[in-house]
């Protein structure tokens, strides 16, 4: 029995011009302490399905699934208070735009202490001390000073570290990272990924890593789900996916990696469509 189990998840958005299906019959499962990568280009619905798990989709979204359970608990029909016992405590999430993901009107210290005080019932002083530990754990330089900083006074990499610190504050069992490095400089990307992997190990969490970067997948994941236009294309453990990709779309993604390029032109995923159309 997997920790997170999703069967036949569909998410539709009502728009001014009609209904739009973002996720179309996806199955996903994650075991504890496992690192799962969900790969796909933008618009493939990979974030939407995880936002559905978190209950973070707007009211315009309609979510249906045969099953969506965490530890056997049904996530589809949770009341607000029941959901909050899981979300932000046992399941946490970090996002693509770290600076925009932090509230510009409050110090980052306030924002992490808030989690500690409200979710874990700490006093102000306890929360302050624990926040400092967490900031050290995620490698924020001059952590005491940074507790009093506002997001706009910090770099993107530092903000993502703050987000990670908030996400691990309650020692979650599952951390969902939605393109955590996409908005960052290349040099910082590696550091953040390493940090996530270290923490995953240390805390014994499961990690779902949403990414469009096959390179990231190769370095981190145990298992991979490839998604395209809201549908699952392929699912495999990471070795067999890279050794023998089954689906033409996966092959297209892999051949789009610069190091796999042959000839003088980088292949693109649209080559996949041309070969599809030619068939």
């Amino acid at each position, binding site marked *: 029995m997997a920790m997170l189990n999703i069967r036949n998840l569909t998410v539709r958005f009502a728009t001014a011009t009609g209904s739009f299906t973002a996720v179309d019959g996806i199955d996903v499962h994650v075991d504890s302490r496992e690192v799962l990568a969900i790969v796909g280009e933008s618009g493939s619905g990979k974030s939407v399905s995880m936002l559905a798990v978190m209950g973070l989709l707007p*009211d315009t979204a309609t979510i249906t699934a045969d099953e969506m359970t965490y530890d056997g608990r049904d996530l589809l029909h949770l009341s607000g208070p029941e959901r909050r*016992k899981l979300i932000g405590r046992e399941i946490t999430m970090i996002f693509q735009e770290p600076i*925009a*993901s932090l*509230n*510009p*009107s*409050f110090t980052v210290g306030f924002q992490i202490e*808030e989690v500690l005080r409200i979710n874990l019932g700490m006093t102000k002083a306890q929360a302050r001390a624990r926040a400092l530990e967490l900031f050290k754990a995620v490698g924020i330089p001059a952590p005491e000073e940074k507790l009093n900083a506002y997001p*706009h006074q910090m770099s993107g990499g530092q903000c993502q570290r703050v987000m990670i610190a908030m996400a691990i504050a309650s020692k979650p069992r599952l951390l969902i990272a939605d393109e955590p490095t996409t908005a960052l400089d290349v040099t910082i990307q590696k550091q953040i990924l390493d940090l996530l992997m270290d923490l995953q190990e240390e805390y014994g969490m499961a990690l779902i890593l949403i990414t469009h970067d096959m390179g990231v997948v190769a370095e981190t994941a145990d298992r991979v789900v490839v998604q395209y236009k809201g549908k699952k294309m392929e699912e495999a453990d990471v070795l067999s996916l890279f050794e023998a990709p089954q689906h033409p779309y996966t092959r297209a993604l892999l051949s789009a990696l610069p190091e796999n390029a042959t000839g003088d032109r980088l292949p693109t995923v649209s080559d996949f469509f041309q070969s599809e159309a030619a068939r």
Partner: protein
Amino acid sequence: MFRFILSKLLYLIPTFLGITIIAFSFPRLLAGDPVLLMAGERGVTPERHAELSAQLGFDRSLPVQYLEFLGRLLHGDFGNSLVTKKPVLTEFLALFPATLELGFVAIVIATLIGVPVGVLAAIKRGSWFDQISMTSALVGFSMPIFWWGLLLIIFFSGFLGWTPVSGRISLMYYFPNVTGFMLIDSLLSGQKGAFASALSHLILPSVVLATIPLAVIARQTRSAMLEVMGEDYVRTARAKGMPQRRVIGVHALRNAMIPVITTIGLQIGVLMAGAILTETIFSWPGIGKWMIDSISRRDYPVVQSGLLLTAAMVMIVNLLVDLTYGLINPRIRNK
């Protein structure tokens, strides 16, 4: 922050000079000779005309006249009313508390109702509450307040007989002027019923004056909340498992308030315009009524200085709003 304040202050100087130029030009542009206006209906001999001209400084070159005008302003000399012969500044200061009290109560009403209504409408977007409150807001925004005031008088004063039609307090009460605010002074006087009388005089005019700002604030709050609730950091707050109350009341509201406070501040100018109409309808002895009376009596020193003082006041309020904006927005505060 200090540089922010300084730049705002420096920015004000040319605007303020511009306002003095407009005020200075006013009597000189006025249809009709100000000297004749001052002399009144009996008319003057040419000698007396020249003498008055010299006395008023109209015989010198315009730049000289302007500098003299500025000099007098710096000494607090805003001229004398043609009608009452009293210094304009004295009259302004005597009447200003009445307008301030009315405006203050109006803006408090508008804010205390407008902000919660806007927040609720945004949270329950598309609901009955949203539709009804936003339709009402648009009606309020479209309201000719001089008519609205008359309707309220017909209903509450005429039909129900609940509220008085005009003035600030019933004539049977008399007490010393301590703060200039009738609500406070009536309480201080300790006379029975004085506060109730002041309040019953204040309620209709302040509701009328609050109508348009209330509508604007409610609409602005709603759209600011809607915008903020789509931001990534609100999603983060939810992802952290914060209760809905806290997500909206702390994370969203704090950021939505930044544009709303600007809007509230900008309503001060709207209030001054509204005060002219409201005070006229309710015979409220404040700046607005004083200005409109002076315009129709062609009491040009009053109009000139009243214009200047009102604009200066609006400008100062706008400055305070800008500074508040800097205070509540960390992105500016910590530059």
